[in-house]
């Protein structure tokens, strides 16, 4: 069957089987950032946004997303790079295989929660497994990123106030 949907702000068409899962369709469309780590919805590596919400693309029937909006890391490259530099600043990407899914959920968290505390962050990201880092470095990166954003915003406000 043929489906049309919006992938990273662009209308795309894909010819798919009725049982095709979104993960594979996205990879075939060139979004190689989307990874599979477990097949049983436990690891979070395949996280993408559907209509702005974090979902596990390994268990989404591609047929069901016709007419919906899908975002992968490729679609938020600039933001990914910005947050990614904080992650790399801690060495906390390590093997990098879980980074795309992790970053997608981190960015979703920033959209959903306003300055989340440590416990909120941990709970929001609990579905993103990482075997390399022990999670502490990821948390440091998030905290430093949030701090930098706050400083940026304040500087902006000051700029607006003086202008």
């Amino acid at each position: 069957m043929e489906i049309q949907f919006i992938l990273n702000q662009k209308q795309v068409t894909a010819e798919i089987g009725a049982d095709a899962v979104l993960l594979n369709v996205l990879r075939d469309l060139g979004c190689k950032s989307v990874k599979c780590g477990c097949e049983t919805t436990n690891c979070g590596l395949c996280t993408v946004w559907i209509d702005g919400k974090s979902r596990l693309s390994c268990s989404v029937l591609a047929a069901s997303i016709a007419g919906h909006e899908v975002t992968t890391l490729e679609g938020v490259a600039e933001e990914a790079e910005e947050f990614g530099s904080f992650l790399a600043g801690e060495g906390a990407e390590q093997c990098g295989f879980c980074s795309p899914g992790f970053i997608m959920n981190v960015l979703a968290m920033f959209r959903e929660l306003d300055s989340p505390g440590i416990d909120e962050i941990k709970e929001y990201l609990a579905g993103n497994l990482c075997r390399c880092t022990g999670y502490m470095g990821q948390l440091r990166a998030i905290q430093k990123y949030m701090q930098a954003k706050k400083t940026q915003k304040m500087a902006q406000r000051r700029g607006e106030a003086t202008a």
Partner: protein
Amino acid sequence: MLTISNYVKAKTPEEAYELNQARSSRVMGGMMWMRLGNARVKTVIDLSELGLDQIEESDNVIKIGAMCTLRQLEECEALKEMYGDGIAESVRHIVGVQFRNQATVGGSIYGRFGFSDVLTAFLALDTFVELYDGGTIRLSEFVNRKPDKDILLSLIVRKSKRKFRYESIRQTKTDFPVIACSVVTGMVHGKETWYFCVGARPMKAALLEKQWEIPKDVSEEMLAEYARQAASEFTYGTNMRGSAEYRRHLAEVLIRREMSSILAEGR
């Protein structure tokens, strides 16, 4: 491995029901569990355009559409106002936010899984299921029915002044529960009634109803005796996550803590 030949987004509940009468048809929820099974499905029926993804509150009930996600349950203000943090507590340990953005209430309830937190939570409340063909029946009745070809449209929780608690024990924080217990109490036909529901025994959740009048200042010993009594009326089994004996002990501890918490609130 799951294979699917046709995918249909049903336009009406009638269409969904008709399609589902074929032996090789299946209704999809969040696709969390169905995907992991071995089945050759001719037609998979998607209910996502039937407007079943809303939680509606009226004077007497809270109606939860079958396609609502567990995340919606977790964040539902109406349920929180009525029953406190218990509902959110029952789902927030389930894998992760992405999973809960996808797994549906209908899928969780229809599947009648042994590990289901959602079932364990709602079974203890005054809950009904709305079926396309079978009408509205008690969840406690639905749970013990064999899966059939009807369509689950919504979960209906009657509002009442009942107190609700939910607790579970897990090995890792996002694992299936080793045991899950909900306790509800309130006045039913003028009598103080306690409902106990224990899931992940590892068999599916079962419900126990007791007309116990328990004074708010009940002694610790008496309370422990009530909890022992309640826990002993369930059966338990052994699997990788725990032995039957340990599960029985945990059920007793959790039930006691939940009862104690409810009684403390009343004091």
